């Protein structure tokens, strides 16, 4: 056996006659195991007996090794004993930044907004303080400053981010087209600055209602991408979610203009109770308009989204969010990322308009630093961020005992949000998986934390899972590892 640089993965296992082929990895779970075949992208599940054979704990495994050889997973060849994992391990580096240039203000007031953004007039009418969704007096370390970054500071940060090797960014809010710097700068001025700095991928996430022909021409000239939220095909539903009459019409009109201008645009839909009844029709509308989109993103309980009244129904959660059967594949680039750090968070930061640095735009109460207190580089190379970036599923409760942990996606703010503050940010179990690694069974429940922070397999969803599967309501394209 090759000594593995990743403790949970075994390479080069041998029974004397055969050994695992180069690029074939064995991962032991609590009950079963998995074989990742990097040569063909295949993933196999093996039972306890097979695990014993592979580990050399059973002398009765010759035929099994022959079968592995027939599947090109094992060979009799005398292989050079080198670790492929050593080549795959990577050092986390800054790869993507969300520039949240305006956290509080938006021209809409969406029911689920993670940043609690809204028009200033709404904030005033509700008696809410300016300065974000966590009142400063309650925030402690999580919201370190109330003063906003200036446009010059944003330009300085854009240069700093680029100098750290990052060439991809997104401008987001609030509504980024509401942003106005002290010298009258717009989001497009900042995007132009990023472009001239050298960024290769620039995207603006917007509700698109403030786009004009003039702005669209400039977006086109700058060669930047646009992402737009559309919540429903149905104007009433969309306007109900945005709390803004006429917003659907404006967004649709802008989308048509973007399409006509040939601007790369993706349209995304967050699934929640108010729009779940027509989610398929909404996605069909998006497709008919010629836009790309993702699998509907199920509401994260963050900001105003942390509201049971708008949480999607349990049936929708099962249909659109849960992994109910194994559906994995493996490639070197993904495995490299997943063994080196967090599958999603590694290499990413959000900078909010008061300078807070968050590991994810949804991790609103977890600042790892503030650019008004220290330099960006200090935060990026600091221990707090490194701890987050380097956190693999080996740190996640339950997942750490699963044989698919190095090929399965993870979302920390979702895990934290669903468990409502119980448990630790980096270790709360992933709530969208129905696999029980301790029994080897799927689709009987989901993992949650109890009040003491201990994981338990919540089987209350089981009847709905069974019903959805039995009636073939499950989407044909399931989320994989998400």
């Amino acid at each position: 056996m090759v000594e593995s640089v990743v403790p949970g993965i075994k390479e080069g296992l041998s029974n004397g006659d055969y050994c695992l082929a180069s690029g074939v990895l064995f991962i032991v779970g609590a009950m079963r195991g998995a074989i990742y075949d990097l040569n063909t992208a295949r993933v196999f599940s093996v039972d306890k007996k097979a695990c014993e054979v592979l580990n050399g704990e059973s002398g009765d495994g010759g035929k099994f090794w022959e079968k592995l050889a027939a599947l090109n997973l094992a060979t009799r060849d005398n292989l050079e004993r080198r670790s492929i994992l050593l080549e795959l391990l990577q050092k986390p580096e800054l790869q993507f930044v969300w520039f949240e240039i305006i956290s509080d203000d938006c021209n809409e007031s969406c029911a689920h907004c993670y940043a609690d953004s809204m028009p200033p007039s709404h904030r005033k009418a509700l008696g809410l303080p300016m300065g974000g969704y966590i009142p400063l007096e309650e925030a402690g370390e999580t919201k370190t400053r109330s003063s906003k970054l200036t446009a010059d500071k944003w330009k300085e940060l854009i240069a700093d981010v680029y100098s750290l090797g990052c060439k991809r960014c997104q401008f987001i809010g609030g509504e980024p087209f509401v942003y106005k710097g002290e010298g009258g700068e717009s989001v497009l001025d900042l995007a132009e600055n990023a472009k001239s700095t050298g960024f290769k991928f620039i995207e603006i996430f917007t509700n698109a209602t403030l786009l004009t022909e003039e702005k669209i021409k400039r977006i086109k000239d700058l060669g930047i991408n646009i992402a737009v939220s559309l919540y429903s095909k149905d104007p009433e539903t969309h306007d109900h979610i945005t709390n803004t009459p006429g917003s659907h019409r404006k967004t649709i009109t802008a989308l048509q203009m973007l399409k006509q201008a040939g601007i790369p645009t993706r349209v995304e839909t967050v699934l929640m109770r108010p729009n779940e009844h027509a989610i398929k029709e909404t996605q069909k509308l998006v497709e008919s308009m010629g836009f790309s989109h993702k699998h509907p993103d199920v509401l994260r309980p963050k900001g105003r989204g942390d509201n049971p009244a708008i949480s999607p129904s349990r049936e929708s959660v099962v249909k659109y969010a849960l992994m109910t059967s194994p559906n994995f594949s493996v490639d070197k680039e993904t495995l490299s990322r997943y063994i080196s750090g967090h599958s999603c968070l590694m290499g990413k930061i959000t900078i909010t308009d008061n300078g807070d640095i968050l590991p994810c735009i949804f991790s609103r109460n977890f600042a790892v630093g503030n650019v008004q207190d220290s330099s960006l580089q200090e935060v990026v190379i600091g221990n707090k961020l490194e701890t987050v970036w380097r956190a693999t599923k080996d740190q996640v409760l339950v997942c750490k005992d699963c044989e698919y942990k190095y090929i399965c996606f993870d979302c920390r703010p979702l895990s934290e949000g669903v468990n409502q503050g119980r448990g630790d940010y980096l270790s709360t179990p992933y709530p969208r998986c129905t696999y029980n690694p301790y029994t080897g069974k799927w689709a009987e429940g989901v993992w949650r934390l109890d009040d003491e922070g201990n994981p338990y397999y919540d089987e209350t969803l089981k009847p709905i899972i069974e019903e959805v599967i039995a009636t073939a309501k499950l989407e044909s394209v399931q989320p994989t590892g998400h």
Partner: protein
Amino acid sequence: MLIESLVGEPEIVLVTPVAGASLDIPCNPSSCTPNVACNPNIFCNPFNCAPALRPCAPDAMPCAPIKPPQPPPPGPPKPPSL
């Protein structure tokens, strides 16, 4: 989702969608245009010809661009000809 039962005991089962894991159609990353994996049906896979691994997430995150094939590293300098 197709799980192909391959052998008896000890048990080994394929948990990769078979069409995506085929050896018959080798993936050629150079034939994939950047970010094509972000188009329908939208999986963040660095090699979009290979089976999708994970949806883009979270909502606001664009898919990773696909790296173009890298040229082979330069070899040692040739000795000057005599």
